[in-house]
């Protein structure tokens, strides 16, 4: 491949690519990120290829396999251009019908069209779907159009233009000024102003400098970075190139968690392509700027997402954090000045250069600018990745983009910021999404995990879940985090097991303050947040567990029973067959019965009981005690016989 030497070359190549693309009648875009593939997108792609070949219509249909489109609940899905017809949850057998009816004859197939779960309205065209309507897809829009393994696609989309422009007409200081003026803040969680961070690293003295892309994405329940790296790896690379130029770094690393094999694959391919085209390596785009980029795979440790630990991991050591200062910008990788940013932060850079800081900072609130990608998951109708303007309210995200709560249940809480964040209740849903407002409410913006919880989620269980997570992931270097989180988990374990005592809540609060104040790194300093926010907003649930030994959400195993209502049960044997511990007895057409002493509370029977029958119930508290009392008296009287 010929190396691109300057902006002019790049523009020329771009027009050549665009001119060489045959105009076909229709274009079928298939979303095929990890979640698409998990839902069967590969079989859909195969089916299209097969049909197109069999029917010899290669000249009519163009197939485009892209990264994730964000509407993961509807995977596998396709968009048919030029009209942007959206078909959801496809099966391979749908493909020949789609080709015949829609592609060749322009007819819409109602059964494949998305239906809004709230209004029941059908939306055949992708841009009109409420899930997409309320979004502002500055970074994720490209995922609709790019084959992530094609540099040409990225170039045709206007890629590397920002880099070329920077190398041609920006001094490093001017780049930094532009980023500062944009108001961009780090998307990795803490929200440090990006331009300012670059400036510190640029001004630091050192014979070598490094930059790092943090793609460790440890927050369980979040996958924004995966989707960006997988679907548009060149945008991250371009952002890093611009950053390296501004900071004066010649070498960079992308640290990707090992659970993301497809992201590693795509970013590795992209680096090779960029090298070949003269966009990475020596004298980039014909300039005097040199830069090398390496991919490093994580090895499964949450703490390695913390910047000082991450650097230790790149150096081949255990991912232990260390005291800051000195900050990485002063002393980072192997002691040299190092700038570390999150994937999404890097991906914003080309956009800011292309459109200008004053365009970028028009969107958002006073101190949070631009857009933010969230992974909207949990008990919500439209689960997926959403990109929204800063300042949008949580309510708008959950109800307008997310389509409300699954199964018409009631909303209980939304969790942001992962293990470092908190759970916010209904009363705070009108808060705008903004770094500072969320922090004030006791949570944090975090990297973008947004987990929606409904009335069937127990908040004490959620707090225990997160604390258990941080306790297991605590590296053990400092005492408050290692021992403090352990103590807190033990108290929470007791509470969910029905052995909570008066005073436990206060004990938790005290421990939380110590762990927060005295821990070495962000892991410990934020670990108590999920506990503190659930106590602050859902104290009554803690009290129910402790005082009444009841779990109002019917989640905590030790506090609930499964019970078959004899008047409702139709005796279909389904639950009986599904029970792994043979705790259910009964005959066909006669009410079944659960032997509580054998029941392991796995929930399999409830899953099997046909919803229109609904004979299996969960009970807690007094009702549970009553049932248990009657059961044991019946048993005793039988034994007596």
């Amino acid at each position: 491949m010929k190396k691109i030497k300057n902006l002019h070359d790049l523009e020329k190549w771009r027009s050549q690519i665009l001119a060489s693309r045959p105009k076909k009648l229709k274009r079928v875009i298939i979303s095929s990120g990890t979640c698409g593939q998990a839902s069967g997108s590969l079989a859909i792609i195969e089916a299209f290829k097969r049909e197109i070949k069999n029917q010899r219509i290669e000249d009519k249909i163009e197939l485009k396999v892209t990264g994730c489109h964000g509407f993961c609940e509807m995977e596998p899905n396709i968009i048919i251009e030029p009209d942007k017809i959206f078909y959801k949850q496809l099966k391979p057998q749908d493909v020949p019908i789609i080709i015949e009816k829609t592609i060749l004859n322009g007819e819409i197939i109602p059964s494949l069209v998305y239906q809004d779960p709230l209004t029941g309205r059908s939306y055949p065209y992708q841009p009109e779907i409420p899930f997409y309507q309320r979004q502002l897809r500055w970074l994720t829009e490209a995922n609709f159009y790019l084959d992530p393994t094609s540099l040409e696609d990225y170039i045709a989309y206007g890629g590397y233009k920002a880099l070329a422009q920077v190398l041609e007409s920006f001094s490093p200081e001017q780049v930094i000024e532009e980023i500062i003026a944009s108001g961009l803040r780090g998307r990795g969680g803490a929200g440090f102003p990006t331009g300012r961070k670059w400036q510190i690293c640029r001004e630091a003295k050192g014979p070598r400098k490094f930059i790092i892309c943090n793609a460790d994405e440890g927050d369980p329940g979040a996958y924004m970075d995966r989707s960006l790296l997988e679907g548009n790896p060149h945008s991250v690379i371009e952002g890093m190139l611009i950053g390296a130029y501004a900071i004066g770094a010649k070498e960079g690393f992308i640290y990707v968690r090992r659970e993301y094999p497809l992201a590693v694959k795509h970013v590795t391919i992209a680096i090779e392509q960029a090298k070949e085209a003269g966009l990475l390596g020596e004298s980039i785009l014909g300039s005097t700027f040199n830069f090398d980029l390496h991919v490093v795979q994580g090895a499964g440790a949450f703490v390695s997402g913390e910047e000082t630990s991450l650097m230790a991991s790149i150096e081949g050591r255990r991912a232990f954090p260390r005291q800051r200062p000195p900050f990485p910008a002063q002393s980072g990788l192997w002691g040299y000045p190092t700038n570390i940013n999150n994937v999404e932060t890097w991906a914003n850079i080309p956009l800011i250069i292309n459109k200008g800081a004053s365009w970028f900072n028009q969107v958002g609130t006073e101190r949070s600018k631009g857009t933010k990608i969230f992974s909207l998951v949990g008990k919500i109708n439209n689960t997926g990745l959403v990109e929204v303007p800063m300042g949008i309210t949580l309510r708008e995200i959950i109800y307008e983009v997310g389509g409300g709560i699954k199964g018409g249940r009631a909303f209980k809480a939304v969790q942001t910021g992962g293990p470092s964040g908190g759970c916010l209740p209904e009363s705070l849903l009108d808060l705008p999404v903004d770094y500072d407002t969320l922090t004030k409410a006791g949570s944090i913006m975090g990297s973008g995990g947004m987990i929606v919880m409904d009335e069937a989620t127990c908040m004490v269980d959620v707090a225990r879940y997160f604390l258990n997570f941080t306790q297991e992931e605590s590296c053990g270097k400092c005492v408050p985090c290692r021992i403090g989180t352990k103590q807190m988990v033990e108290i929470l374990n007791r509470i969910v097991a029905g052995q909570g005592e008066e005073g436990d809540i206060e004990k938790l609060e005290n421990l939380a303050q110590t762990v927060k104040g005295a821990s070495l790194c962000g892991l410990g300093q934020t670990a108590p947040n999920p506990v503190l926010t659930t106590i602050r907003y859902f104290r009554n649930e803690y009290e129910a567990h402790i005082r009444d030994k009841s779990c109002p959400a019917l989640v905590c195993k030790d506090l609930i029973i499964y019970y078959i209502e004899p008047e409702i049960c139709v005796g279909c044997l389904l639950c009986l067959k599904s029970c792994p511990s043979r705790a259910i007895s009964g005959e066909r057409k006669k009410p079944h019965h659960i032997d509580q002493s054998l029941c392991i509370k796995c929930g399999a029977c409830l899953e099997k009981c046909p919803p229109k029958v609904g004979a299996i119930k969960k009970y807690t508290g007094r009702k549970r005690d009553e049932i248990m009392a009657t059961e044991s008296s019946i048993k005793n009287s039988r034994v007596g016989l």
Partner: protein
Amino acid sequence: MSCLLIKKMASEDKEIFKGLELNQKSLIHLLHRIQAQYGYIPEEVVDDIAERLKITPSEIFGILTFYKAFALEPRGKHLVTICLGTACHVRGGRQIAEEAERRLGIKAGETTADRQFTLETVNCLGCCAIGPVVVVDGVYHSHVSIDQIEKILKKATEKGDEKN
């Protein structure tokens, strides 16, 4: 571990060390390669690596036990990975993991006596929208319910047998 395997590794050293600087920086990368090739890190190779990379064996054991990615024991023929990330947790991932533990008769992190299955849990696979997620030998299963586990496990063994 059989001597044969050690010998084989020694002869394949060139491949495994290819393109790597022989120092601490390469350690994690190298361990990933060994694990990808053998399914685990045989204890016997630690001294050898230590010598080549000029670090102490204890440093390597430190790494092996710190990071979850590395196994010191051979794994089963099939690897079952169950997500316990937050999104999967609120949709019942824990119950899915417990069902798999029951069906296989082992705890998460263990391998069945017949070396057919290794069961592991992870903190998120990045497919949070379609949870609970179970991955068997690289094949993702979405929206998994308790009663699907039996089928999913059975399919894995059938597939494996086909290959043989």
